[in-house]
């Protein structure tokens, strides 16, 4: 049986791990390799590093820390942040990342997903989607969310984009539900279920985890493959070993 994955997310800015509330007002949480090792020791199944300043600034992710992380840890990790070409993705993968995640650049030029899948195989290609419900009730995607001043609301419906990225070669989708991010009120189960119904590749929930029950709900009710969280892990509010023991008691398959 495949285990459901617990995935701490480390937002990286200027070489340090930061976390904001609703994607704003970032505060420094710690040093990258140190936090990566801590989460490995606690039983994280995978790590995601988002260079949140890379896309708005129009530059690619700084790779010095990617190799340091790859040397230090023995669990898989994914790197996101301004990857705009096959060459940039190759550099990150060769530095030791297991997967690369694209978000804003895929919205700029959707063919990027096809190119990455052709070059490295779909298993390396994660598409991150930042999604927010608009006043008319539709979920639509947001771009450049790392910088509130540059964040753009796009006319593209989230559910349409989920279908398209799979056709183009996404091997996994991380759905960042911005409406629930950072406020610890639980994952956006309604949106996750709607996406799950049309998502045939692994789906990772992001945004809103505040209690162990929220993880259980995402796995049991929305049937997601992984659950990503940042602040509750960084702050120590939820310890991963206890979270996993709780999930196992709830009959969720996990790696202990």
């Amino acid at each position, binding site marked *: *049986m495949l285990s459901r*994955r617990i995935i701490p997310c480390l937002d990286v800015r200027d070489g340090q791990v930061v976390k904001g509330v609703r994607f704003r007002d970032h505060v420094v949480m710690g040093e990258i390799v140190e936090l990566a090792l801590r989460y490995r020791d606690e039983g994280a*199944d995978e790590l995601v590093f988002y260079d949140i300043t890379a896309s708005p600034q129009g530059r690619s992710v700084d790779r010095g820390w990617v190799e340091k992380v790859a040397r230090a840890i023995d669990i*898989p990790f994914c790197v996101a942040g301004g990857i705009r070409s096959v060459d940039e993705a190759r550099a990150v993968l060769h530095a030791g990342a*297991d997967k690369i995640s694209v978000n804003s650049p895929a919205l700029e030029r959707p063919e990027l997903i096809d190119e990455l899948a052709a070059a490295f195989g779909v*298993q390396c290609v994660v598409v991150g989607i930042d999604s927010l419900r608009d006043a008319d009730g539709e979920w639509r995607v947001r771009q450049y969310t790392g910088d509130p001043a540059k964040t753009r609301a796009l006319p593209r419906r989230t559910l349409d984009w989920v279908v398209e990225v799979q056709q183009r070669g996404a*091997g*996994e989708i991380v759905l960042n539900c911005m409406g629930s991010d950072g406020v610890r009120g639980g994952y956006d189960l309604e949106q996750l279920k709607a996406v799950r119904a049309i998502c045939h590749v692994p*789906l990772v929930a992001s945004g809103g985890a505040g209690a162990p029950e929220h993880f259980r709900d995402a796995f049991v009710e929305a049937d997601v493959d992984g659950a990503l969280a940042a602040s509750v892990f960084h702050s120590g509010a939820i310890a991963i070993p206890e979270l996993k023991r709780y999930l196992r008691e709830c009959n969720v398959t996990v790696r202990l």
Partner: protein
Amino acid sequence: MGVVLVDAGGTNIGSVRYALQRLGVDAALTADAATIRVADKVILPGVGAAGPGMARLRELGLVEVLRSLEQPVLGVCLGMQLLCAHSEEGDTACLGVIDAPVRRFVEAPGLRVPQTGWNGLSVQRDHPLLAGLDDGEQAYFVHSYAVPVGDWTLATADYGGAFSAVVACGNFHGMQFHPERSAAVGAKLLKNFLEL
């Protein structure tokens, strides 16, 4: 002379090399036939697709070199699939040193392809490669194609049915998961290979 990693363009070569370094072994990266022939142990890593993987080995002139090796060889992920006879991925003839087919997972409700994540290993056969491995210990998999269970199978995992997680045929061995990314379990199995 030591352990070599066959540099056939796979993107996980760095990760495998770092995993070996954590075990105190500095493996050389090489695509040189003479270096590979005289190595004590040969590891064929791989991430990507079977067709381009075999094309790259042909370009490098390594197909016959790898087939004729007599020292312990380990294929990891795509590297394991390349040791097999044939892959459905791109209808590709592979090295054929393990007489097994490679087939695509069939999508089903609740069965996402690629399989991505940690899955439990079930030991089928005693083998030094699996020394100290307990049933149910988990390893990290990322793949859309898999080797069915057969004479070559040392350990299985279950994803919509059992498939081969660890294989061996003579001096050729394969791990479908990524030992370099499978925490303590992966380190144990890599160490076992180094001690074969």
